[in-house]
């Protein structure tokens, strides 16, 4: 073994040019692999961080009646089934040690209404208790204008991104109540039009749901304009609203006016299930009402009805750190089924739909790139090593004549490639690690959401896990073995006679 490595090592030194060619290829391959893995892991971590920490937690509970798991970034128009069993759910969740925190929310599409315009604009409404929301997601966005609503206050938070879009639809620039136009935050077109800019401090929205026929148009006072830390083009479609206004808007029974929760059976009886968009446009759909004047659908119950008794669409759950994802999902599903809650648990990557898919596409592209890279590397290395085997045939034949077995010759070649790939590949990995560590320090930023997904945060932040490095090392090993295989065959095929006839 020592003899093999000695000979291999000295041969490397003896054929410096060739060794260098192979070395550079291996170095480049290992470097790109490492950085690539870093980007992938950074991206995976970034998506997780952005979505889990800032958007929906690890797991969402959704109604059993809900067909698609993708409740957050679903196609426009398909509504999310209501959950009416939150009381039971809460009790069960409180008893689960692996659940760190949870937040019941309403989530559905709403149409922006404006008396003067015919084309409607859309936004997602996320209904939640503001103070609970803040506890669940303490730093996912910053309020850039106005203020964060007080607990229990009826209000709407509009993302800057949505405001820009609303402007495109209506030429109205929405402002928080009591706030003025902040020039830096103005959309370019709006800035150009600043003298005739129409501003408004309230938004009229009509909830869009297929389940219940009594959606209402609600005028929401804008309390603040927010900007998400990342993925504004995705998260920016979500306007945060207090849960009671949300329910009114969607035509759900609010806690205040609800004496009986809406059981599923009853809705079925009424024959209002199914994504029938036409049913959304009832006769009174265009009548604008102020939330304060919203009619009570049922007589207010006398006592003890809190917001928690009302209708939600999902419950966001954050898990205790280090808890196995799959286990938690299974346990939750068991507990929820056992408790008669008629909800099921889905992981974040399913609930947030296409974003998981996007990550997969990027991963695949990178994988294909790396595979191509290694194919090229293998071809060049095979070529170089085969040449060197042929050049050394008198030396190899002589070794065979003196009594070296085929395995010895094979080992010598494998040893050479192994040393080269260990040294240069190792350097490549090291350089890759270094690059991955340095890149975040450069704080490269982007406004592009696809890139933000890659960046995994506000700035390009590739990550490297031990397993990522191990994967690179393993891939390098595979390349080494594959690349050495053919030259080894050639070398092994050299006979002692070849040594002698070469004079």
């Amino acid at each position, binding site marked *: 073994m020592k*003899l093999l490595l*000695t*000979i291999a090592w000295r041969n490397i030194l003896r054929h410096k040019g060739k060794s260098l060619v192979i070395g550079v290829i291996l170095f480049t391959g290992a470097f790109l692999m490492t950085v690539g893995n870093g980007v992938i892991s950074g991206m995976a971590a970034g998506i997780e961080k952005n979505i889990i920490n800032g958007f929906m937690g690890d797991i969402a509970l959704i109604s059993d009646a809900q067909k698609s798991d993708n409740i957050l970034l679903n196609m426009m128009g398909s509504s999310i089934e209501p959950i009416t069993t939150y009381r039971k759910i809460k009790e069960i969740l409180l008893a689960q040690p692996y659940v760190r925190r949870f937040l019941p929310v309403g989530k559905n599409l709403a149409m922006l209404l404006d008396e003067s315009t015919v084309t409607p604009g859309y936004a997602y409404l996320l209904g939640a208790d503001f103070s609970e929301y803040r506890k669940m997601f303490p730093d996912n966005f910053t309020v850039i204008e106005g203020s964060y609503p007080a607990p229990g206050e009826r209000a709407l938070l509009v993302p800057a991104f949505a405001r820009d879009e609303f402007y495109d639809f209506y030429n109205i620039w929405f402002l928080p109540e009591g706030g003025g136009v902040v020039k830096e935050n103005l959309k370019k077109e709006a800035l150009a039009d600043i003298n005739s800019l129409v501003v408004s401090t309230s938004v009229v929205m009509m909830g869009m749901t297929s389940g219940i026929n009594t959606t209402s148009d609600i005028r929401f006072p804008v309390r603040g304009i927010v900007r998400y830390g990342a993925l504004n083009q995705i998260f920016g479609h979500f306007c945060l609203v207090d849960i009671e206004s949300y329910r009114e808007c969607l035509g759900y029974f609010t806690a205040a006016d609800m004496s009986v929760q809406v059981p599923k059976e009853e809705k079925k009886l009424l024959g209002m299930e199914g994504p029938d968009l036409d049913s959304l446009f009832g006769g009174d759909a265009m009548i604008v009402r102020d939330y304060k004047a919203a009619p009570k659908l049922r007589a207010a119950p006398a006592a003890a009805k809190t917001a928690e008794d009302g209708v939600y669409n999902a419950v966001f759950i954050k898990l205790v750190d280090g808890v196995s994802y799959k286990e938690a999902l299974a346990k939750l599903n068991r507990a929820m089924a056992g408790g008669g809650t008629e909800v099921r648990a889905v992981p974040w990557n399913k609930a947030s739909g296409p974003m998981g898919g996007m990550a997969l596409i990027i991963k695949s592209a990178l994988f294909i790139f790396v595979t191509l890279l290694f194919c090229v590397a293998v071809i060049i290395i095979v070529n170089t090593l085969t040449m060197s085997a042929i050049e050394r045939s008198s030396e190899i034949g*002589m070794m065979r*004549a*003196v009594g070296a077995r*085929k395995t010895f010759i094979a080992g010598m070649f494998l040893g050479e490639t192994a040393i080269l790939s260990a040294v240069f590949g190792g350097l490549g990995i090291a350089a890759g690690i270094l690059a991955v560590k340095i890149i975040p320090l450069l704080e490269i930023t982007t406004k592009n959401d696809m890139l933000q997904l890659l960046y995994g945060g506000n700035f390009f932040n590739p990550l490297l896990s031990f397993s990522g490095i191990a994967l690179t090392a393993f891939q390098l090993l595979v390349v080494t073995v594959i690349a050495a295989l053919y030259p080894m065959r050639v070398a092994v095929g050299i*006979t002692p006679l070849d040594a002698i006839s070469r004079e």
Partner: protein
Amino acid sequence: MNIIEIRELKKEYPLGNTIVPALRGVDLEVEEGEFMSIIGPSGSGKTTLLNVIGCIDFATAGSVTVGGREITTLSDTQVTDLRLNKIGFIFQNFNLIPVLDVFENIEFPLLLMKKSGAEARKRAEKLVEEVGLKEFAAHRPAELSGGQRQRVAIARALVTNPEIVLADEPTANLDSVTGAAILELMRRMNELEKTTFVFSTHDANVLKYARRIVKIKDGLIEKEPAAA
């Protein structure tokens, strides 16, 4: 006892569409401990014969027994091990491993035999001394003269204590003084270790050392003259 037994050995080389008969029915017996020379004109088949005996080339027809084993029946690994354990080969163009120094080149077969490090070193040291290359032990082949390289090749052939040493014109590339020294060394080894030596030459000076001379011509052994 015959350490080498050759019967009806034929060796043909294909050359384009024709066939070149290099050996045309050789019968030869070599006893253990012999110091034998094969002579003959150029192209007579000396190298071919030595290659077949050394299991480096293989017969087209006939039987070759080396150390009691019929080599045509052996696998590649068995043949390799036979070369390693029983035969020492000195090539005409003294092939050495360029990346190993003198000492390492001599030690090489011992390491292939998986001899223990200390044992191998001792034996290699002895051989380095015997071929008079002690001061050159750390030199690479490229830093040696032709004669020195040939001495390294001889030491390497002898280091495993082989039963047979085959040498193809061991002195062809050497001046007469160096050639004589090499032959002296081989002779001494033969006497000391009872190693069988078979070498080819067409140098009359070399013949003086041989105790038995076999003449070969056009791929056939001629009648043997009396031993020198």
